[in-house]
């Protein structure tokens, strides 16, 4: 399996294909909803060198405070599609070449990744405990007091972290959108066999908007 050194180069990103399984090694920062909203709406974000650390890991880890420092208990990637409202702006602002999360992102973020030369990596199964062991160092934490352990931004050093699969490539293609198109093709036949008429419509008890046009 291919291991990619972070920060990922444009050339490496553009050579990756949908469905490729990869691990990554190097530095990454974490964030969830609060990171996205604050970075774009309030211009608040950690003072990191985003050229050196440009892998954004969507996660709310379980962290334990020990006498020897912070310990990761488990870290399961969280659903990235929730951040689509801000995804493209965050990718452009920090020139992110690697996003790691769960699910996928939408068309606007895919477009931004294409411009920047970046990819979106999606998780394979639940693997929060294996991922924990691949985090070799918890480097820093930001906004812990304001946001709490789950929404804070952590900086991790990781080694052969993953594997993940390429769900959005650097050319604007999305693994899940292709799959959804196939599901749409299968749906009419399944509905027919369930006895749902092809022209079935739920009862509408509100003004018919098409009648006003």
């Amino acid at each position, binding site marked *: 399996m291919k291991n990619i050194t972070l920060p990922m180069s444009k050339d490496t990103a553009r050579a990756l294909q949908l469905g490729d399984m990869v691990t990554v090694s190097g530095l990454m920062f974490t964030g969830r909803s609060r990171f996205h909203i604050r970075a774009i709406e309030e211009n608040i974000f950690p003072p990191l060198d985003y050229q050196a650390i440009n892998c954004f890991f969507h996660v709310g880890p379980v962290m334990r405070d020990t006498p020897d420092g912070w310990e990761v208990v488990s870290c399961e990637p969280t659903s990235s599609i929730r951040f689509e409202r801000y995804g493209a702006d965050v990718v452009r602002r920090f020139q992110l070449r690697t996003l790691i999360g769960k699910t996928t992102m939408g068309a606007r973020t895919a477009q931004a990744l294409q411009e920047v030369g970046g990819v979106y990596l999606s998780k394979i*199964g*639940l693997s929060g405990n294996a991922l924990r062991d691949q985090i070799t160092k918890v480097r820093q934490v930001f906004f812990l007091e304001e946001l709490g352990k789950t929404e804070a931004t952590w900086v991790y050093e990781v080694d052969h972290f993953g594997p993940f699969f390429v769900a959005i490539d650097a050319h604007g293609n999305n693994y899940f959108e292709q799959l959804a198109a196939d599901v749409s093709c299968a749906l009419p036949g399944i509905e027919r066999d369930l006895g749902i008429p092809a022209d079935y419509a739920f009862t509408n008890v509100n003004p018919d908007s098409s009648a006003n046009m």
Partner: protein
Amino acid sequence: MILRSTLEEAMYTAMRTASVQMPPDVRAALEQAAKEETDPMARRHLTVSLQNADLARAGKGLVCADTGFPLFFVQAGAHTTVEGGFETIFQAAAAATARATEECFLRPTMVDPLRRSNPGNNLGPGMPKVELTFSGNGDGIRIIAAPKGGGSEIFGTFYNMLFPSDGVAGIKKFVLESIVNSCYAGKICPPAIIGVGVGGTADLCMSMAKKAALLRRVGVRHPDPLVAELEQELLDAARRLGIGPMGSRGINAVLAVNIETAVTHTAALPVAFNAQCLVGRRWTAMITADQNITYTGDVA
């Protein structure tokens, strides 16, 4: 009389165990699904998740790091008495939740909905959520602790007030569309257990859907043959969508479709949908009047 300390211990241990151990029926269903899938990615999603659960069981982490909403389903008998009265159950649930959070078996996830502030202990108005019901003539208490993950709750909850003229076809269309939408890109972490409520009021309908998803052993059909047939029909349909584990190409988007019904208004056909994710977290504690606690991953 059941003591406060017994309740606290049982609720804490059930919640902790639910966070680190997959129920045996759910695990068996996932192992079966892994055998069925042919796409390498679909299979890998499942084998990786099962290995992750093995690590959690061995004391190395959690079944899933999103321990979600802390829920307790409590059932008492006609002769059950509790030290300090039944209100003690709610206090014990809060103490158990705070302790499990403090010890990192639950992630501090519950926040104020408007301020988004996080007290760090998963406590606040409404949480932990405790549902207290009464059944039978016993003097014990049954507790099911269910840390309900965000993915399945956030992306897998739908409600639709249909009308009698929408018919069973309307129920089927609503459920099938909800499965397609919620499984897209693995949002609800499939293979999911789908709970469906039909009838009642809006809140009863959703409550039935949630309990159908969380509290029924995988593979058990509804006792009413009409409902059981609808469950099977919808499960068979879901398996033909071409969606597999974590939204991949496969067969097992859904492990079970569980329907519960209640009588409703003659003008109405309410339908609710609530999903449970692949780890199906729940653990049961049974307490007797003489403070004996037994635990099981099964639901009866």
